């Protein structure tokens, strides 16, 4: 009964968030969110997409000039919507609806991922005989109100960043959709979907390319579990424990259950790689057809991936790189471009080694890192990472500085528009003011990543301690 009630309240909140978005859509001209630097970067701005579509319509390459840098597929899907409008409705209604729907699907996907996570989590705790312990401990209190999956979905839907990104007409909800599709596909072992999501996400914004590591881990090992060593120990302990009494059946069961998680299964991974090839060929062929008469794929790569990697646009955004590259000496430019992009790549393997038993969390960490270090970050990216953060409320309950992080989030998101206004519109401020807020935002995300990783590792440590204590108890 209580569960049903919870369910109901969840759906009420979801509908409320969608209605809220629709209300906001109806007066966008007053809000003018679509031209905010926090919302629309050169990559995600719908205005630029409309310009690209207009150029395409007047038989010029959509990539002519430095206006549009997105995917040709987005252009084909969203482009016609930018010029169509229903009588008597605001012009932006059609494509705004697409973004609202994308947001809704995103929330559902997060919820589905959360469900999978929760199932494996409780199962693995059971297999460690820790379910009673964990239930009684403090950190399950959070989950008492709502399951973590609903919390995550609601955080995603009600996060002001998500709402702003959705109403502000940036294409980041669609990019997030592709990323979530990939993770969901991997969690629920739908290999073609995972491959499709990954290919699309990479095609749309390049940075999700690093998600191939967590996706492969997800496919190979299954969703997040406590460290595998523990399970092995546990199994060993169990085997040691009762070698004689009704051996065959019990053993078989004990073997069967954790086996799934422990052995890396190559078959889905190989399938995944195969599907990646198929999907990327498919996407490339589609793009190739679309841009055939305008310089072909080469041109497309140059003005999408090339634009991302070389940071040509120096207009302000919430990241720190724009100001850095506006100020850095020209002969160091290439060096720093390489350094900053390597910063993302360098951290892939240490994280993957340390967190290989928790691929979903690994994906969250990767997404947060890339949303911090990418060349044109926007609030849409951090909306996704914050939404995913909600999935791990149980594990991260003991995270340090969480209140501090929350306060700084609020502070930065209030101060940043003010500083931008002072600098750009009133001319009384200075670029440094705005840069300082961007700096604070970057530090904030760094603290978030570091603390969440640390909290997750601590959680694992705690599990190990508990389980070893239990083992000892059992033995003695």
């Amino acid at each position: 009964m209580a569960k049903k009630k919870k369910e109901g309240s969840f759906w009420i909140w979801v509908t409320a968030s969608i209605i809220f978005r629709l209300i906001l859509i109806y007066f966008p001209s007053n809000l003018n969110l679509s031209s905010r630097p926090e919302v629309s970067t050169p990559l995600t701005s719908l205005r630029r997409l409309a310009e690209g579509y207009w150029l395409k319509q007047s038989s010029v390459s959509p990539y002519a000039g430095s206006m549009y840098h997105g995917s040709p597929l987005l252009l084909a899907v969203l482009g016609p919507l930018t010029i169509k409008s229903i009588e008597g409705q605001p012009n932006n209604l059609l494509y705004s609806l697409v973004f609202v729907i994308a947001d809704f699907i995103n929330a559902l996907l997060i919820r589905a991922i959360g469900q999978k996570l929760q199932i494996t989590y409780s199962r693995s705790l059971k297999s460690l005989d820790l379910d009673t312990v964990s239930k009684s401990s403090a950190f399950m209190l959070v989950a008492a109100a709502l399951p973590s999956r609903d919390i995550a979905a609601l955080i995603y839907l009600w996060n002001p960043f998500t709402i702003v990104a959705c109403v502000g007409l940036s294409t980041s909800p669609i990019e997030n959709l592709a990323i979530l599709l990939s993770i969901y596909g991997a969690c629920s072992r739908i290999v073609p979907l995972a491959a499709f999501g990954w290919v699309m996400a990479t095609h749309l914004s390049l940075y999700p390319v690093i998600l191939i590591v967590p996706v492969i881990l997800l496919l190979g090992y299954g969703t997040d579990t406590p460290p595998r060593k523990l399970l092995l120990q546990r199994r060993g302990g169990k085997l040691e424990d009762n070698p004689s009494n009704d051996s065959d059946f019990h053993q078989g069961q004990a073997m069967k259950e954790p086996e799934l998680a422990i052995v890396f299964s190559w078959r889905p991974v190989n399938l995944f790689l195969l599907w990646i090839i198929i999907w990327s060929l498919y996407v490339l062929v589609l793009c190739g057809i679309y841009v055939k008469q305008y310089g072909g794929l080469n041109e497309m790569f140059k003005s999408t991936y090339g634009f991302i990697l070389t940071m040509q646009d120096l207009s302000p955004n919430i990241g720190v790189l724009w100001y850095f590259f506006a100020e850095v000496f020209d002969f160091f430019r290439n060096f720093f471009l390489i350094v900053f992009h390597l910063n993302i790549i360098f951290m892939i393997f240490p994280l993957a080694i340390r967190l290989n038993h928790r691929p979903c969390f690994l994906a969250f960490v990767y997404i947060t890192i890339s949303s911090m270090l990418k060349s044109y970050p926007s609030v849409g990216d951090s909306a996704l990472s914050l939404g995913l953060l909600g999935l791990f409320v149980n594990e991260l309950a003991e995270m340090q500085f969480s209140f501090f992080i929350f306060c700084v989030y609020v502070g930065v998101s209030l101060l940043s528009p003010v500083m931008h206004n002072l600098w750009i519109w009133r001319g009384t401020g200075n670029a440094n003011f705005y840069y300082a807020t961007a700096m604070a935002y970057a530090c904030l995300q760094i603290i978030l990543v570091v603390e969440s990783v640390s909290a997750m590792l601590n959680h694992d440590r705690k599990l190990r301690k508990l389980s070893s204590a239990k083992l000892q108890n059992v033995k003695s």
Partner: protein
Amino acid sequence: MAVLPFRRVFVFFFILCFSLFYASVALGSGIDDEEFSEELLLRPLPDRKVLSHFQFRSRAPPNSSNGRHHHLFPKAISQLVQKFRLKEMELSFTQGRWNYDLWGGFDPISSNNAKPPGVELWAVFDVPQHHVDSSWKNLTHALSGLFCASINFLESSTTYSAPDWGFRPASGRLRYGTLPREAVCTENLTPWLKLLPCRDKAGVAALMDRPSIYKGFYHSQRLHLTSTEFDSDDVDSGIVLEQTLTVVLQTNGKKAVLTSQETKLQPSWSLTTMFGRKINGRCVLAKSSNVYLQLDRGLVAVLNNLQKENEISAPGNLAYEASRSNHGFELSVKPDRVLEEAESQGKNPSVLYEFAVGKYSNSESFDLGLTWKLPVVWSCQQAPLSASRFLMGSGNERGAIAISWKSSQLSQQLLHPDVIEENCKLQVNVFQVVPWYIKVYYHTLQVFVDERLEAVSDIVEKIRVSPSEDKVSPGVMEMILKFPCGMKSAAITLEFDKGFLHIDEYPPDANQGFDIPSALISYPNFHASIQFVEDKSLDKSPILAKFQEKSSVRSYTEVLLVPLTTPDFSMPYNVITITCTVFALYFGSLLNVLRRRVGEEERLLKSKAAKKTGQLPQLLLKLSAKLRGRSLETPQSSSTSSSFVSSKLILKVILVAGLAVAWQFYFAS
């Protein structure tokens, strides 16, 4: 056999004679062909100013007939033509803005000689398509050396563009560039004068007194070059160089006691009061050397009216007034010729007085003066629509460019009979170049006619856009608009985002703002030409030929000043260090969290605590053992392990050193 030598001699003689003859003909024709003419056109303007327009025209025969040498034609220019294979080129230096409302917008001078502020250069090359850009770059450098101006800034691909049909009809080998902020000064005029055979020592050019020229309201120095050398067709006129200087001067009338009657009177002027100099005869090298005084249609109409009134009121005065036009004013010099416009839309043709400078000398110098006797108020003929361009929006993030048109009286006059027609259209061409840091959203183009929003496709007949590319090329927009004839006003708007530049790309005075060059608005259905009645036997003077050329009415809009946001120029180091610190913080702290193992740390701490007590004696023991050589006290296992470690260490050091050497070898070379 005797015949053969004779025949040979004969042939030789014949060849000699022929070649001599040919040479003399060629030489003679060369002298004849190379010609130079100087002219000055004066025109009173309605706002108490005077337009003076100097025009010098030099012509060189085709290169083949004349070798490399020239008598009159400047060699620098002909070399320029040869080197860059120029078909046509125009360079103008302008200060001030031509006031289209007051000074006219429908006559040949305003549509050909009113230029945008700063430097404007366009050139048509006769080279293969892929060489055009390199030719242009070299040309800008050559010209900047020739004219002591920073025309070489036009070399960068962000400043010039390749208009297709919006600027001039046809030609894909045209390049067009402007520098709106270039300051124009005497240092640009001196090299320009050097191209004239008499410089400013004699002839009309002697009037160019620098202070009085640069004191004017508008100053435009232009050099136009056409060459038919590389044309395939036989009509070959060689190189024609046309140098014009258009200045609008305030007449320095005596500001003595002015009665109320006199204030209404237009100020009287003479060459001395305007330029402070007189013309002491012609430049002897010039083929023709004339001064013209033009009265435009509006003025003639006013004068005619005055005369009619006078005739009615005092018919007796007719005898006193020698000529009709002399009624309202008096000329100090009697004109040699009076030319009248042949065909005009109104009843009042424009009048041109011609003065030949040739007969004047040092002793009797030419000083044309005009004294007004009656107050006259008139207005110049205006372009069909008067265009202006302005910026909309505030702040440094985005804005909009708007071009607005207002119909002038003329268009109402001209188009009056057509208004009845339903599909009467007024064609307007717009050519606009926008620098790359103004990121124009062309899909936001909006057209307003009579303050009502119209569908773009109804008005815009043809549009060509080449969007700007960051740091590579400017945005070019060429448009053909067709407005309904009866409209009162029209406007187009385009939204843009302001770009953000690297600190090195800002000019020294970054906070002043950036200039968007003038847009060119032309009305292809209207031709600014004046046909004068004259006997065909006479040589047409270049200025009259220019007047009769059928060119469309053109006008330039204002230059726009766009303020761009500036970063903090003073702190690149701070930004670099702070950003790198943040990155280091991220990398370091994350790595620290990842490699921390709590259990091991605890163990390590414990062992350390255990060790701490006996550390010093142990160290001493080790030391003494070392001194004694291989000691027996140290356990075997640890020594082997330590030696093993050290060998590993050495291996590592060698590996790193080898890598470093390889790196040095491959990448340093």
